[in-house]
Every structure is written in C-alpha cells, then in structure tokens.
C-alpha cells in the first residue's frame, strides 16, 4: 500500500485536478473584472472566457473567443496529461507528459497578467485612459472634436478568486515538476527485491 503512495506524484494529481477545475470555474467566474460607472460597462476577462457587458447586453469578440477555445483546450490537455503522469511517473514517457503538462497553467497565468498590463499601458498611452489593474480610480475620457465637455468615469477593477485558483494550479504543477526527481527515482530496496 505504501509503495502505491510513493509511486504517485501527488502534486501532479492535485495540479491536474485543479487545472481542470480552473477551466470549469473560469467559464462562470472571470479572473479579472473591470466595472465602469455603476455597472454601466463590465469587462470580464479570463483566458477561458472573455466577455463584455453593457447593462443587459453581453457580447464577446469572435477572435478573442477563438483564443479562449485555444486556452480551454490547452488547459484541458495539460490537466489530463498531469493526471495521467501523476499515476505513472516512472514510465519511460512520463517525463514527456510532465513536460507537456506542467508549463501550460503557469504560462497561461503569466501571459494573462502580461496581457492585462500591456493593455492598460496601451490604454494609458493611446487613449490617455487610466485603467487600474486593482482598485478604483476616476479617469477622464477623451471626447474627440468636442471642447468644453469633460467626461469622468469611475473605474473599478480587481482579480477574482478564480485567478488565485489558477495561480494555485500553476504552483502545484510547478511543484510536481520539482517533486518528479524524488518520485521518479526507483528506491534501491525495491530494485533489490
């Protein structure tokens, strides 16, 4: 019984399961949310599901929807690979499964954060619109060709709990990679028997 436990990479098992859970959760709860005014405009962002809402109208950009599908399939493949690897970490092809699976949640989180930072910097540089990553701020919107009118909006943004779940999944997958050396090493006593 103890031998079975030592043969399993528990970090990979938890990481794979959490990665699949992240997909399911992110379909409903965004990783990052931006609200303009009193819920006049909301931007729900996550690599899995990105949409915008203007009061009762919710819409998504088709190209971003395609990228969401890419992210869903990538995370799903990663999760499945991690789950398969976790129970057979000593097979000859296990390291390939681990290599395929462990980086994807980490890169998804990193690219998402980098994408958000770049988008806010572009908004600031091009539109002079100060979009916060976290917290609230009032920002003055530029109105082209109209002088004498100032439009100021309250922008509130923040990372949601689903983002932190994705960070945990990425951390577990990274831990699985580090733990691999320990679990993949066949104990000398087992070899002797």
């Amino acid at each position, binding site marked *: 019984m103890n031998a079975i436990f030592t043969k399993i990479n528990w970090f990979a098992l938890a990481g794979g399961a959490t990665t699949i859970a992240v997909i399911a959760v992110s379909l409903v709860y965004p990783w990052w949310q931006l609200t303009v005014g009193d819920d006049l405009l909301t931007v729900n962002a996550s690599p899995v599901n990105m949409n915008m809402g203007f009061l009762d109208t919710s*819409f998504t950009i088709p190209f971003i929807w*395609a990228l969401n599908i890419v992210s869903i399939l990538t995370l799903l493949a990663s999760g499945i690979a991690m789950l398969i690897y976790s129970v057979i970490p000593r097979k000859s092809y296990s390291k390939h499964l681990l290599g395929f699976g462990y980086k994807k949640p980490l890169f998804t989180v990193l690219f998402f954060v980098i994408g958000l930072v770049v988008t806010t910097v572009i908004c600031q540089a091009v539109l002079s619109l100060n979009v916060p990553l976290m917290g609230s701020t009032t920002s003055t919107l530029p109105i082209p060709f109209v002088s004498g009118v100032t439009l100021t909006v309250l922008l509130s943004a923040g990372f949601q709990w689903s983002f932190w779940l994705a960070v945990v999944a990425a951390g577990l997958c990274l831990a699985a990679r580090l733990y691999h050396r320990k679990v993949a090493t066949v104990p000398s006593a087992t070899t002797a028997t």
Partner: protein
Amino acid sequence: MDKVRLLLTLITIAIVVIPIVGMLLAYQNNLLGLFIPPEINEIADNLSGGGTNGSGLEPPTMVGEPQYDEATRTFSASFQYKNTFPIDITIKSLSGNIKCDEHHFPLGNASLSKPVSIDAGETATLTVLGTWTEEAISHFRTCTQEKELVDVVLVDFAVDISGIQIQMDQSQMEQRMQVPNPAP
C-alpha cells in the same frame, strides 16, 4: 517514447491552429466582424440617438413656478427630463453655478435635491435647489429690484449619471430659467 513526444507536439499544434483557422474561415467574408461584434454597433447607434428608440439628447424643460424660502435664501425649481437613452439611468447628482443673465453676476449655486432614477424612454421630474449668497441678495436689491421674476443662467454644469460624471463649461451648456426675485 518518440511517438508520445510526436503525439504531444501534434496535439499542441492542433489545439492552437484549429480554433483560429476555423474562426478565420467562418469570418472570411467579414474579417472586420472578427474583431467588432454587431452588438457594439447597435450600442453605439442607440447611445448616439440613431437607434430605433432613441431621439437624441433632450435638454430638461422647466415646469411650474420656482418657489423661494426667504429664511434659508433657497429656491427650488422643477424640471422634466426625458431619458432618451435605451438604458435605465440614475441621476445621482447635479450641480452648477447661477449667474445673473443680464449682469453675469455670480449669485450662488444649485444642486439636485435627491437622486432620481429614470427608466429608458420615461420622463421624470428633477427638483433643483439653489441658494443665493449675501452678495446675490444685495445684487437683487440694487439691480433688479423692480422685477418679480429674474432671469438667471445655470453655468459650469456638472452631472453624475450612473457613475459617469459629465462637466460642461459655459460654451456647451447654459440652462436659462426665471426665478422669483428675493428682493422685489
């Protein structure tokens, strides 16, 4: 082992390529639609008043006679405002400075008595409270003493609609009204 590696590489490529190529093929006759969904155009049309329901931004119209309370130097005036936007709005605050229309003398300030929610296409009454300064009372006594009603203008207009604050200077917005002369 190499077969597993090859399979994983093929899966990676397929995961990235198939959705993007599929979407490009679906929108090959309308590449702009790939980045701008039709809902955005509808919202822009409705907001600019060009939609099926909208008729553009309408200025508020004054209704009834303004009331004046001598003890507090406060007057109240009611305006009717039609929400021509296709969305429900809440006017949370409204403020401005009042000037004498004839002499451009600053008389005081005005603000909305309480927040007003207006459903799309509906009309609601906004009550604006204005307070005269001591200098304004002196101005009324010296310059407009013979008049029952005085022409004033609301300038430096600022309004908060559902969290969006709009400020207009005199070149964009001047709401003229007649108020009772506090020193007839």
